[in-house]
């Protein structure tokens, strides 16, 4: 998919004016928070449950290489074929060659963020193989040719009227309607036909269990299960951090994922595949390919701070609570991943140089960190990226900062360690700032700090700073004390 991360401000300034998306985004965090709290409270100890999930993901990151090998061994033993893709190109090539060998003309797809990351749909289409997204939201986004608005609800911002027009045009719907049930039914009819004749289904993976070689998918529509049970060939694609040590770990993460994602105790469908259909079994694919995608992650793994990004389980909890996401929606993040998790992951996968706004457009409020069941410390990651950017780090592809900024912090750091210089600086700057003050308030500084003054005033710098007032304050105290003594 097209990378538009450098257009963050351009897209965000447009999206922030989108009344429909804004109205929806105003409701989303509140509604989700209520549901989330209700289901989190169904744990005997919600905090302990979150902490347990965080510990599991910490273990995954710590033991990633060996867990992947264990998973491969056990998946192979169960009859799955495991393929390792170094990058997006290799992963797409693998799917294409599997498809071509079987002479398929189209594939059906379950919702999968990693296939967005590698741009699988475009690669398939270019080779004349038509991909059909079968998740309702993903289907809408695909037909509208839009990037995902939310990692969990990719078309959650699209008005029903627009969906109606789209389905009339592209899904063979015969009568206009804005009834969501009828719209869903139209998509279902259209997609059932695709499932009926499909010979290759593509899915993502929520968890890959190392001890059993099992892949697990969570969903609410049943389409992923269709993708796994209808075709003869199933290709499931996972980024390498999706592995978890044990089935018990996977079950706990299933509980947490459902709760933090959609505010459910468990999603409507949880399907597990341990290898393809075995003799005597009534359904499942004849052959199962599992493609494990690296795409830069093993390089990230070499960085002890950056690797923490690999904890993420894609629940979307951070999107649902982020105050910035709630203003601009998912499009400005410019790629497959949006909101805080995207701000953490995308800069590592694409480089710091073309994702600067992702790790800077954040107030560091920490709401995402507080809600994360995987233990990602998003603000800490952003601070790390900012510092690597300033240092022009080669590995992470830091970009040079504007010279004015570097110069400022150079001078600043000299003053900050010498209070005499610092206070001299204050005395020098004060008249420059305060000449804009009228009636005790600054409303503009003639071009400086335009962003601040766009919507806010500023008090002038005090005629006497606290530093300058202290002697007087101290005298007052001594005076009072001596008065008391008398």
């Amino acid at each position: 998919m097209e990378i538009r991360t450098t257009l963050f401000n351009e897209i965000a300034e447009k999206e922030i004016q989108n009344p429909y998306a804004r109205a929806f985004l105003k409701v989303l965090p509140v509604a989700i928070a209520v549901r989330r709290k209700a289901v989190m409270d169904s744990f005997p100890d919600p905090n302990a449950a979150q902490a347990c999930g965080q510990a599991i993901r910490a273990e995954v990151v710590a033991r990633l290489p060996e867990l992947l090998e264990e998973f491969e061994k056990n998946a192979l033993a169960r009859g799955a074929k495991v393929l390792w893709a170094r990058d997006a190109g290799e992963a797409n090539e693998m799917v294409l060659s599997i498809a071509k060998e079987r002479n398929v003309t189209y594939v059906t797809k379950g919702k999968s963020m990693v296939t967005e990351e590698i741009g699988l749909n475009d690669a398939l289409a270019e080779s004349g193989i038509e991909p059909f997204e079968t998740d309702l939201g993903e289907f809408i986004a695909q037909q509208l040719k839009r990037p995902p608005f939310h990692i969990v609800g990719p078309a959650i911002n699209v008005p029903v009227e627009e969906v109606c027009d789209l389905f009339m045009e592209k899904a063979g719907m015969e009568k206009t309607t804005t009834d969501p049930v009828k719209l869903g039914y139209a998509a279902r009819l259209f997609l059932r036909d695709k499932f009926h004749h499909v010979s290759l289904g593509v899915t993502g993976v929520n968890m890959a269990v190392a001890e059993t070689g099992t892949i697990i998918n969570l969903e609410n529509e049943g389409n992923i299960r269709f993708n796994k049970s209808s075709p003869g060939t199933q290709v499931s694609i996972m980024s390498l951090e999706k592995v978890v040590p044990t089935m018990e770990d996977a079950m706990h993460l299933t509980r947490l994922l459902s709760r933090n994602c959609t505010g459910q105790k468990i999603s409507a469908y949880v399907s597990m595949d341990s290898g393809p259909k075995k003799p005597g079994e009534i359904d499942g694919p004849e052959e199962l390919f599992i493609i494990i995608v690296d795409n830069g992650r093993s390089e990230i793994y070499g960085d002890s701070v950056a690797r923490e990004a690999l904890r993420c389980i894609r629940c979307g909890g951070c999107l649902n609570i982020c105050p910035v996401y709630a203003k601009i929606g998912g499009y400005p993040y410019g790629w497959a991943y949006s909101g805080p998790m995207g701000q953490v992951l995308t800069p590592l996968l694409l480089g710091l140089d073309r994702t600067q706004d992702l790790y800077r457009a954040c107030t560091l409020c920490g709401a995402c960190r507080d809600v994360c069941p995987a233990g990602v410390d998003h603000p800490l990651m952003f601070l790390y990226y900012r510092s690597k950017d300033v240092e022009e780090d080669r590995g992470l592809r830091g970009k040079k900062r504007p010279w004015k900024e570097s110069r400022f912090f150079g001078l600043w750091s000299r003053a900050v360690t010498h209070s005499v210089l610092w206070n001299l600086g204050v005395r020098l700057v004060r008249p420059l700032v305060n000449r804009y003050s009228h009636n005790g308030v600054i409303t503009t500084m003639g071009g400086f700090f335009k962003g601040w003054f766009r919507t806010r005033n500023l008090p002038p710098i005090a005629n006497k700073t606290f530093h300058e007032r202290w002697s007087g304050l101290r005298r007052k105290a001594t005076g009072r004390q001596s008065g008391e003594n008398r």
Partner: protein
Amino acid sequence: MKKASLFIPCIVDLFLPEIGEATVQVLRRLGVDPLYHKAQTCCGQPAMNAGYRDQAKKAAKHLIDVFGDDDVIVSPSGSCVYMVKHHYPQLLRDEPAWLWRAEELSERIYELSQYIVDILGIEEVGASFKGTVTYHESCHILRGLGVSDQPKRLIQKADGVKFLPLPLADMCCGFGGEFAEAYDYISEEMVKEKVGCYLESGADLLVLCEPGCLLNISGYLSRNHPEKKALHIANFLAGTGGGG
């Protein structure tokens, strides 16, 4: 007499010194003698947030040197306290000689309301206000320091106060330092929503503990709703105005 060393953040020093004065007043009223090291400057947060880690480190070491011997350090800013408590040990993790000093310092530094309620054990500080009051939960105070009940108790114990809840009280006000300047169009929507919640609460006054949020919120109020005020908790408790 108990002593407490004042850590006055640069925003307070420059723009809102009345918060510092009120802090002095309240502490004295509670029988604490505040002292102030004139060598103090800034905690380094602006540099760290911008990615200038080496420069932030210099600020950190300076602050550790200035406050190193004090038993108790109190600041009318949770964000700067959070910087010292949480980020100094990370910044200095590769310098053992500094790391232990940073860790040790982090045990002795408190945000003002936290100090009054948790350390002094006082909730009734002799404040009074005739009217309804609501409270904004600043991010670094709530999620950084885990301080939320303390300021609300201090407000509720003030004479004549009726406390009203603030809708979405824990939602960020959109300050974020450099964020407010660089992403002004997002920051504007955030502060607008925060102020909308304040108006919706019906309270006569918004109290908060964070100078950064105060600069943002009262800057917006001053421009768009000049009849409404926001006040730092130190000024609220001291019974003095100011705070932007």
